[in-house]
């Protein structure tokens, strides 16, 4: 019967200890820096356009085929404001289908898509998880604001120059 008594003592000890749970809707667990939420599109502040060119590489390598993208000629390029010849026209991700694997981020050549910290899947309408370009950019902008994200290429270039200066 000793084991049983020991069990009672253990539960008594935990009873007088502080609970370890979070009061979820009121208080959120901090999200880790690397947390992969939904894939979102990033906004190039310098030229006021998305980084995405609609090249479809992410669409092709998506294991669940949850994305669609359409490319168009970039009007800003014609005006000479942007170096991007092509730009994304429409982009849709069905976040209900997305498995958050991050392959789209790995394959993207333009640092245009990123795994955000957004993770709320519950929506008010049946197909509300189909996010169009506007919403993806909006979420991406929020992520950019939150984390001070900069494209990896830019970062690498800066680091290289900093090193060169040293």
């Amino acid at each position, binding site marked *: 019967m000793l084991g049983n008594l020991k069990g009672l003592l*253990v*539960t008594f000890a935990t009873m007088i200890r502080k609970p370890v749970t979070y009061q979820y809707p009121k208080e959120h667990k901090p999200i*880790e*820096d690397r*947390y992969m939420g939904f894939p979102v599109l990033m906004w190039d502040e310098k030229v006021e356009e998305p980084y995405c060119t609609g090249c479809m590489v992410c669409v092709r390598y998506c*294991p669940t085929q949850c994305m669609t993208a359409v490319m168009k000629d970039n009007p800003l390029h014609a005006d000479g404001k942007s170096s991007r010849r092509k730009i994304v026209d429409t982009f849709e991700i069905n976040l209900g289908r997305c498995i958050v694997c991050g392959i789209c981020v790995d394959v993207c050549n333009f640092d245009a898509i990123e795994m955000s910290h957004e993770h709320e899947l519950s929506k008010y309408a049946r197909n509300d998880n189909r996010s169009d370009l506007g919403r993806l950019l909006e979420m991406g902008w929020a992520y950019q604001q939150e984390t001070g994200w900069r494209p990896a290429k830019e970062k690498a270039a800066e680091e290289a120059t900093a090193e060169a200066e040293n």
Partner: protein
Amino acid sequence: MVDVSVESQSEGQLDTVQMLVNMGPQHPSTHGVFRMVLMVDGERIVDVEPHIGYLHRGSEKLCEGEIYAQIVTLFDRLDYISNLNNEMAFCRAVEKLMSLEVPERAEYVRVILCELNRVASHLLFFGTFGIDAGAMTPIMYAFRDREKIQSMFEAVTGARMMHNYIRIGGVKNDVPDDFRQRMTALIGELRQGIDEADRLLSFGEIFLARSKGIGVIAPERAIAYGASGPTLRASGVPMDVRKDAPYSIYDRFDFGIPIGEKGDSWDRFYVRVEEMRQSLSIIEQALRDMPEGPTITPTRLVLRPPQGEVYVRGENPRGEIGVYLVSNGADRPYRVKVRPPSFCNLMAIRELLLNTYVADAVVILGSLDIVLGEVDR
């Protein structure tokens, strides 16, 4: 195969009628969508017919249509409690086929995460086994610690369950800077947590009465069934892929494999508890020795491994996972076959359950620790 007639088997007693009880797929203790049709004589089970396949998603067929990089995500979803171990098995298969070298640091990261994954998986087992036996508190203790592990995974891989972190040729990215400190702290907490949960459940007399001597499987039978992992080791067979055919860098660590003596439910339970402690010691050693360096051998995005076939074995928390990969040189595998550990362990269920009580059936099924995601694939 025991012959069972539906008529009454009692002689000179009251006439009794046997009853067919459908246990699952919605039964609270069948661990997923597993279904057993039990023929019971009162509370005693006289026949069992297991049914699986409710979660059959055709993962192996799906692999044939995906490029190698995408298949890792499919392997995440086989045994969704030990994702990293599955990923590792698949990546090792491809690496072996291509004779690809994996950087040293990547191997260490892989081993640390896989062992951590093993602890997480066994913690889940600890909790659910308590629930099966009727104790409602152990699962909370287990989840308290499991939550910390999941947070650690979140910090390293970016995802709590479906990581897609172990890649062909290494791991996705290097571990965060404060990895070593956080892991050291985590190991301490886990040690304490496991000890506490162990004190609560493992040696309580009621629990011992419920699990000792229940569902005994002899070593020869376990081997014949192809059982592996803790289920086999509880029967006293010291078979562990990490020791028998050391893969990755497991030969560099000093660790023991817990083996049982009787092969009953309690042994299967306690082998896992001890295994958690051994895993923590492996993690400690790996953290100590982890070198600096790159974490991935760069490969092309679309891999075309040479023609051939390869079979790799790995030690999952539930037993031996095998990946049989046939390639014809194209960018997609020709055939992928997974040898699912709990599929084989589950096969013995009929033999284990015959002539036990309904209440024992729950405990025995719990002690096998199955995950239907990999049983059905």
